[in-house]
Each structure stands twice: as structure tokens, then as C-alpha cells.
């Protein structure tokens, strides 16, 4: 193999030497042969003649030798390259359009592929990523989905599981950092000692937690994120061993993580497991021996070497059996394990697949387009090709040459495409940062470059092969007889060209329909009844440091004082707080009991979201009360316990009756029932496209439980009378008058929160819309090219028709209908393909059917219109022809 290449290359690059050696070798043979004949007594002349006769044609032998050395292949390729480049210089218009078209198609593919690469294909930056699973619990109630673990369940799992090498749990916590500049609320996680070993990650500085430090009383150590270390501690290399103040206690810094380590965060995690957007620090969880608490722990486990998911499933069944013995009142629960790679990518996977589909359609349109252009050009070169054929070029040789030109074109297009991809990724990163996990990791790596080369090669073959075959399938005698006439070309070529146009129109049609459906989805979301009014509402979060505010009465009192201050700001129309404001996060949920409506069987437990609110909260967010009254300051612990339910809860649990005055309570019977005093409109909680779940709202001042972790943080909504630029400052002042150590977190307008919740949808609309527009432009350019070429070809015929009395308008209509027929065929195929394709998009749509007749009709109309527009110019040119000139030219 190596030898082969060495000789081929030597013969090619040291051609002169190789030729001289070949000549010497053959000369020696001939001379020896002559000597031999002379020895038999022949004359000089006769000996030479005999020797030559025996040897055969010297040039032929030389050529055979060269072939045997394998130089021919290299030589013809070089020859074709030269020829291809020269013919491109002669034809800059064709060259520019074709390479630009390819660059657009290939560039878009590379850009989308590098997104796919970063999000779906790249391994997570943890050494053990491939063997780590995330474990979830699933309750007996349908539709609730994955649930986090409670501390008690986790400790049972940790004792019973045998298939995990390491097991770790984590939960979100907030830490008020004081003593370094301004107080700042940091989002972090509390993790068990097994957390870091499970992921296999080593810190950039220092170390991670030991088992000893994961115990109550010794947990005052902290690991910092790289970003926090840089932003708050000036990347101090001696940070390890220093002390920082969190929530009023001192913690000693033991390590700093590398910049790539950002786990856990919200990427791909269902909102029921509350996690920071970005984790800034890690602190030991320090679970007690018999822990209690809510389902709020995320659990990850590293499989033992050779372990499988099936093994884990088995292990989890054993765990459930053990747990059911210890906590018999919770029946019917199960657990499942999801590979961490899949977990963190699941959110982004679907839109990416949609994009991947869309971009392959664009690439195919680009290929069909360039194939059409190339075909036209090779028909223009018909005479040249015929001549070559007549002079003895074999068809395969001509095809090879045409293919070489196509590949040159493809690679120039591919090079430009890489540039285009880089630019568009910059744009995407600018617009969609935050909407898509791992977006910042996109970029050209080896895999993307390999993909780019592969796509380029494939497009070159795809758009080059058909025209090369089409243009060379000709009858030599016919072609030569046709001689100098302009007509000619094989009969298959125009058919192929028309087919290419129809295919382009059909594919563009599918893409534009998809884009149209997404646009309608987006508008449906904007028009959807969110249940609140976001104009001039600002929101923020007020987390209370745990040691200072321990019992719920004290917390409620603080919130009420802050609320009073807020309401006294002159520009404020109304203010209130709730566990979560709309678009502020996922609400908590609980099993509920309703004495008037006992469930049909005991295993079926009704479930509802559960949130605390203040008086005036609904007015502040603009959610209308449908029945009854709002809660007020009289609803205290000394009064009758009350609650407000949302319309979804009234519909589900009190159908056809008035819920006011009915009783509802949480699942635990020791907590008293509440009387429903009002029904409020459904408000969208996480996304404008969601269906509202049943929810009950409880006055925060009427919480009978002494310690309730979810009271630790409340989100405020403040509606102003006018646009008030200084509202942020006024809010801060109001909070600090009550307690100057309290951090105001996540200050934002409600409009911004709504906007952020739509980022992913906006992203798909813009990208698929852009790809649809691209396909449409390419298809119309292709249509224009083909129709104007056919006008050029039919000039004599058109001249003749006019000379025989055809009206100009008839000629115009003829050309237009010519293009129209192709467009209609394309649209018809596109409609059928669209019906099949859009069914796959059903889950991206909201408020519009995948087969929405309006979209289909509008897009068909648009495509035919664009096609006619593309034919308009050539048709006008045909109409303006002077028959005399045309006929004389013939």
C-alpha cells in the first residue's frame, strides 16, 4: 500500500527522471536484442528491424508502463482540475451563483450540525458521564411524571442499592454571601459526599468533600464554582483554606471547580426538581441518620464497571420493596433511571431534530438548484462535448471531467459554507443564549469539519452526477448531424430539468408550510389567555436567611411589612406576593382531600398545586377573581382557614356546582380543612402553551405549620401606575428599611419573564422561518434560471409563431403557463409531502392543527405566486422579441 503510493507519487512528481529511466531501460532491451540478432549473422539494418518487430510499438509499451506505474490517474485528475478552473474563469456568473447557492445550503447544514454536535453528541464534561444515571421516583397518580426523592427515601436507596459504584444526592439552596463587597444572594446546591465521586470530576484547586464533612455540625466547608471564584474572589490562587460568610455562618473554602463543571443546573431537568440556573457553590448536605423532609432531592448514581440499566432497574425494584416495608402507607410507587446524557439533552432534542430535518431539505433544494444550473451549462457545452466524443473521448472520461468540475464547485461552496456557518452561529449564540443548553460549546471541532467535508462531497456527487449523465447521454451521429444548430441536447435533459424544478418547489413548499405552522403557533401563544396582565408589573424574589427567620410566623410578618412598604411607594398601584409569580418557576404540589367529594377508590388520590399568597396579589398580577372574594388581612391564624382555588380546580373537582363554601385540605388529616372563598382565573405558570393544573392558594398569614421550607422564599409582584424607571431602587429601599441584610433577587419585569419563557419557541420560529425563506428563494432562482434558459432555446420557435401572427400577449401567457404548470405540479407534490411531514411536528404546535387548511392554502398560493414572479421576467423578454431579428439570426 505504502509502496504503491510511493511509486505513484514518484512517477508523478519526478516525472522527468522516471521518463528518462524508462527510456534507458527499453533502449537497453532493444540494443541487447539487436546484438542477439547480429550474433546470428544478420546485418546491422536487418537486426534492428527484427528487434523492433519483436518489441512492438515502443510508444505503446511506454504508455502501458506508465499506466502500470499508476501515473495516469493522477495526471488526468490534474488535467481535469486545470480544465475545470479555466472553464470557471470563463463563466464567472454561473460559478458565482452556483457556489453561493451551495455555500448557503452547506453553511446552514454545518451550523445546524454543530448545534447537534454540541448538544446531543458531545459527551458531558465529566469523566464518568457515560456511566452516570439520574434516578427518579414515579407516584401512583398518572400524569405527574418524575418526582425527586425525599431524604428518607434516599437513605433507604443508599443502604439497599448494590449496582452503584457511587451514589449522590443534591438539592438547591440559596446562600447570602456577606463580608466580600455587597451582600449577594448566591444560588448553590447542598450535595452528599458521593456527589463528586459519582461524576468523577476533580476540582481545579483544592479538594471536594469527605464523608466526615457530610455530617451535621461539620458541614461548614464550601467548594466554589470557577465563575464565582473569578468574579468575587479575583481568582485568588490561595483561596483554599480561607473563610467566607454564608447565611451569617463562616465556611472554609476547600476547593474550586474547573470552568466546565456546571452540574447541576436546570438543563433538561423537569421543574419539579428545583435547581439553580447556574450553580455557584457546593456545600455538604449533611443528612441526619433518620432524615425527614419533602421530595426535593435529585439523585445520581455511577454504575459499577460492566453494570447495565437493566441491572439498575432490578436494584430499584428491590429498593421499592424495602421502602414499602418501612413506609407502608405509600403504595404503588416505582423508580426509574435515566442516563445523565439523555436527561440533560432531552429538552433540546426535539427542536434540534426539527431543525435537522429542515436544513436537510434546504440542502436538497440547493443541490437540485445547482444540478439544474449545471445541466443548463452542460447543454450549452453540447457542441464541445460532442466534439470530444467524436475525437475519441470515452463517455466515462467526459463524465469524470464534468464530475471534477462539480466537485471543485462543491468544495468552494463548502469552504464558503464553513464561513457562513461560523457567522450564523455567532448570530444564533447572540439571540438564543440561555434557550439551549451547551450552546456556548458550539464551534468547529474535528467532528464538525468531518461532517462538512462529507456533506460537501455528497452534494458534489448529488448535483454533479445527474447532469453529467444527462448531458453525455447522446447519440453522436444525431448530434453531429444537428451540427451548428442551437437546439439539441438529449431528450432526457429537459425532462430532468423540469423534474428538478418540481422537486425544488415541492421541498420548499414543505418547509414553508412547516414555518407557517410555527408562526401560527407563536401567534396563538401570544394571543393565548395567560390569565394575568404583564404590563407595568415588576417581580422579584425575597429569600430569607434560615437562622435569622426560622418559624413561619416570623417569615409571614416580615413579608407583610415589606408589602406595606411597597404599597406606600407613590407610583405603585398594587403589590402582593406568592410562592411563585407567573413564569417564576414551578409551583409545589400536594395530595388533597375533599370531604364532600371522596375519591371513588382509596388508591386514587386527588392532586393539586399549592401556593401561598398575600392579599392583593391577584390584583397586582391582574388575574381576575371569577367568584367570591380575595383573601384579606382578617384571614389570620385566629380566623376560619380559607383558600382560593383556580378555575381549573373548580372545573375538575367541583363540576357543575358552586365551589364557594366547600371544604378542601392537604392530604395530612391533622391539618384542618379550609373553606373555599373565591375562584380565580387560571394563570399560566411556566409557559404560555401549558394547560393549567388545579391549584389552591392559601393566605401566607394563615399557615398553621411552624416550619415550612417553601415559606423561606417568596416572589413579589408590584404593579405601577405609570412607567417608573426608578422602581427598582424604590423596591430595594423598601426592602432594606425592613431588614438591611436582605438581598433582592431576580429583579425583572413580568414582560421579560414571559419573553424568556418563549425563547425556545421564538428560536424555532426564526430558524425554521429563515430556512423556509432560503428554500423559497433558492427554488425561485432555480425556476427563473430554467424558464429563461428555455426561452433562450425556443427563440426561433417564438419568432416563427410571432411571424405567423401570434399576439405578444399569447406568447407571454405561453411562457407563464409553462412555468405555472411546473409550479402547480411542485405544489401538488408539496401538499402531499407536507401532510405527511407536518404530522411529525404536532408536538411543536399550539393552537393550530398540523393540517391547518389556512396555512396549506396560503402557502400554496404564495408558492405559485413566487413561481409566476420568477417566470415574469423571461416571459416579458420573450414577448418583446423582434421576430425579424430572431429569424434572420437563424
Amino acid at each position: 500500500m505504502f509502496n504503491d503510493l510511493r511509486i505513484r507519487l514518484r512517477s508523478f512528481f519526478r516525472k522527468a527522471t522516471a521518463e528518462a529511466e524508462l527510456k534507458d531501460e527499453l533502449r537497453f532491451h532493444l540494443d541487447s536484442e539487436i546484438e542477439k540478432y547480429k550474433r546470428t549473422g544478420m546485418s546491422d539494418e536487418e537486426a534492428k528491424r527484427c528487434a523492433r518487430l519483436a518489441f512492438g510499438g515502443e510508444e505503446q509499451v511506454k504508455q502501458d508502463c506508465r499506466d502500470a506505474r499508476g501515473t495516469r490517474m493522477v495526471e488526468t485528475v490534474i488535467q481535469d482540475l486545470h480544465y475545470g478552473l479555466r472553464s470557471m474563469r470563463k463563466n464567472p456568473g454561473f460559478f458565482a451563483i452556483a457556489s453561493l447557492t451551495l455555500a448557503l445550503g452547506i453553511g446552514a447544514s454545518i451550523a445546524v450540525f454543530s448545534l447537534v454536535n454540541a448538544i446531543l453528541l458531545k459527551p458531558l464534561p465529566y469523566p464518568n458521564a457515560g456511566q452516570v444515571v439520574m434516578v427518579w421516583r414515579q407516584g401512583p397518580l398518572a400524569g405527574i411524571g418524575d418526582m425527586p426523592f425525599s431524604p428518607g427515601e434516599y437513605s433507604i436507596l443508599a443502604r439497599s442499592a448494590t449496582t452503584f459504584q457511587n451514589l449522590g444526592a443534591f438539592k438547591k439552596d440559596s446562600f447570602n454571601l456577606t463580608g466580600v463587597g455587597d451582600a449577594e444572594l448566591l444560588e448553590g446546591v447542598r450535595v452528599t459526599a458521593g456527589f463528586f465521586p459519582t461524576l468523577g470530576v476533580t476540582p481545579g484547586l483544592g479538594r471536594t468533600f469527605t464523608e466526615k464533612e457530610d455530617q451535621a455540625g461539620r458541614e461548614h466547608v464550601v467548594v466554589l464554582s470557577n465563575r464565582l471564584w473569578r468574579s468575587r474572589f479575583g481568582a485568588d490562587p490561595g483561596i483554599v483554606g480561607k473563610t467566607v460568610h454564608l447565611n451569617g455562618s463562616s465556611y472554609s473554602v476547600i476547593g474550586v471547580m474547573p470552568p466546565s463543571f456546571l452540574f447541576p443546573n436546570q438543563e433538561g431537568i423537569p421543574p419539579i426538581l428545583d435547581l439553580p440556573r447556574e450553580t455557584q457553590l457546593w456545600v455538604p448536605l449533611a443528612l441526619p441518620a433518620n432524615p425527614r423532609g419533602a421530595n426535593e432531592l435529585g439523585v445520581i448514581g455511577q454504575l459499577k464497571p460492566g453494570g447495565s440499566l437493566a441491572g439498575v432497574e432490578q436494584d430499584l425494584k428491590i429498593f421499592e420493596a424495602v421502602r414499602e416495608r418501612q413506609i407502608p402507607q405509600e403504595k404503588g410507587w416505582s423508580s426509574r433511571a435515566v442516563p445523565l446524557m439523555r436527561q440533560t439533552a432531552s429538552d433540546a432534542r426535539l427542536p434540534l431534530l426539527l431543525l435537522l430535518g429542515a436544513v436537510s431539505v434546504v440542502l436538497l433544494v440547493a443541490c437540485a438548484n445547482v444540478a439544474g444550473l449545471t445541466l443548463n451549462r452542460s447543454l450549452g457545452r453540447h457542441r464541445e462535448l460532442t466534439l470530444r466524443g467524436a475525437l475519441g473521448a470515452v463517455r466515462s472520461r467526459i463524465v469524470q471531467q464534468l464530475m471534477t468540475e462539480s466537485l471543485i464547485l462543491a468544495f468552494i461552496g463548502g469552504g464558503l459554507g464553513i464561513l457562513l456557518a461560523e457567522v450564523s452561529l455567532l448570530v444564533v449564540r447572540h439571540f438564543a443564549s440561555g434557550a439551549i443548553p451547551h450552546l456556548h460549546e458550539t464551534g468547529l471541532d474535528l467532528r464538525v469539519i468531518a461532517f462538512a467535508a462529507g456533506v460537501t462531497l455528497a452534494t458534489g456527487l448529488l448535483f454533479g452526477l445527474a447532469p453529467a449523465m444527462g448531458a453525455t447521454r447522446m447519440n453522436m451521429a444525431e448530434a453531429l448531424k444537428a451540427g451548428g444548430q442551437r437546439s439539441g441536447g438529449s431528450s432526457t435533459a429537459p425532462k430532468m430539468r423540469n423534474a428538478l424544478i418540481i422537486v425544488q418547489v415541492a421541498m420548499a413548499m414543505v418547509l414553508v408550510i412547516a414555518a407557517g405552522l410555527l408562526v401560527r403557533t407563536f401567534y396563538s401563544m401570544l394571543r393565548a389567555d395567560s390569565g394575568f396582565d404583564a404590563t407595568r408589573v415588576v417581580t422579584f424574589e425575597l429569600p430569607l436567611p434560615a437562622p435569622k427567620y426560622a418559624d413561619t410566623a416570623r417569615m409571614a410578618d416580615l413579608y407583610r411589612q415589606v408589602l406595606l412598604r411597597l404599597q406606600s411607594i407613590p407610583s405603585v398601584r398594587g403589590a402582593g406576593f406568592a410562592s411563585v409569580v407567573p413564569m417564576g418557576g414551578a409551583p409545589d404540589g400536594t395530595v388533597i382531600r375533599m370531604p364532600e367529594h371522596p375519591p371513588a377508590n382509596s388508591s386514587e388520590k386527588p392532586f393539586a398545586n399549592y401556593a401561598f399568597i398575600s392579599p392583593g396579589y391577584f390584583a397586582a398580577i391582574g388575574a381576575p377573581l371569577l367568584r367570591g372574594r380575595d383573601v384579606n388581612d382578617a384571614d389570620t391564624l385566629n380566623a376560619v382557614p380559607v383558600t382560593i382555588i383556580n378555575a381549573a380546580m373548580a372545573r375538575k373537582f367541583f363540576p357543575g356546582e358552586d365551589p364557594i363554601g366547600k371544604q378542601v385540605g392537604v392530604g395530612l388529616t391533622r391539618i384542618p380543612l379550609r373553606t373555599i372563598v373565591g375562584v380565580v382565573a387560571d394563570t399560566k405558570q411556566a409557559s404560555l402553551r401549558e394547560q393549567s393544573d388545579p391549584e389552591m392558594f392559601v393566605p401566607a398569614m394563615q399557615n398553621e405549620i411552624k416550619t415550612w421550607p417553601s415559606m423561606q422564599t417568596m416572589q413579589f409582584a408590584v404593579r405601577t401606575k405609570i412607567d417608573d424607571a426608578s422602581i427598582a431602587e424604590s423596591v430595594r429601599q423598601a426592602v432594606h428599611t425592613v431588614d438591611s441584610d436582605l438581598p433582592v433577587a431576580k429583579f425583572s419585569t413580568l414582560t421579560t419573564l414571559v419573553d424568556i419563557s418563549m425563547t425556545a419557541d421564538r428560536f424555532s420560529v426564526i430558524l425554521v422561518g429563515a430556512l423556509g425563506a432560503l428554500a423559497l428563494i433558492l427554488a425561485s432562482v432555480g425556476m427563473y434560471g430554467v424558464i429563461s434558459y428555455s426561452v433562450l432555446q425556443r427563440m426561433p420557435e417564438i419568432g416563427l409563431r410571432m411571424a405567423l401572427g401570434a399576439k405578444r400577449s399569447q406568447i407571454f401567457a405561453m411562457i407563464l403557463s409553462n412555468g405555472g404548470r411546473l409550479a402547480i405540479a411542485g405544489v401538488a407534490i408539496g401538499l402531499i409531502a407536507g401532510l405527511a411531514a407536518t404530522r411529525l411536528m404536532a408536538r411543536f404546535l399550539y393552537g393550530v392543527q398540523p393540517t391547518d387548511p389556512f396555512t396549506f392554502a396560503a402557502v400554496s398560493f404564495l408558492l405559485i405566486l413566487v413561481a409566476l414572479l420568477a417566470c415574469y421576467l423571461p416571459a416579458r423578454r420573450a414577448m418583446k422579441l423582434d421576430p425579424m431579428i430572431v429569424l434572420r439570426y437563424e
Partner: protein
Amino acid sequence: MTDPHIDLPQGTLDLLILRTLALEPQHGWAISERVQQISSDVLRIQQGSLYPALHRLERRGWIKAAWGTSENNRRAKYYELTRSGKKQLEVETESWRKLTVAVAQILESM
């Protein structure tokens, strides 16, 4: 008309070249002479096909070439069997034997 020479069957040229070179390094002309001599003038190598075959074998790495001096003191290109050429010779000899035995069996059985 009876020609004492027979043309080489397809594919045997390589085998003969390799076999000849197994004795000692030779130049092209000597190879063709040697084959003719040993086969008592029955086999004759088409000189036109000898050289392409040599170059092809060289490219495959079965023989290697070096310039040397001939008996009559002229510069000539000598070919020599390589290690992989020796192996190839064994393989081809073996398959040739099998072929001839098989063909002979068929011819005799009918």
C-alpha cells in the same frame, strides 16, 4: 502452419517473472531470454507486455529495481525479488499446481 511458440495464458506472466527472479536478480531482456531458454523455446514472452508487467510488480512491492552494470558493461535496470515477492511466488506456484492438477484430472476423466 505449426508455430512452435505458444502464447502465455492469462496471469502466468507474473508467475514466470517471479520464478525467474527467484534465482538471481536480472534485467528485463535477460528475463525474457531465460524464460524462452528454459522452456526450450516453447514459451515466448511478448516483449511489449514484459515491461508493463515488471513495473506493475514493482508497484505492488513484489520486486524492487536497482541500476547496475550488464555483462557487456552497459547500464541496465536489474530487478530483484523482495520478501513479499517471495511469499507471493509461493502462493502463486501453489495455486498454479492446483490448477494444473485439476485441469489434468478433468481432461483425463473424459
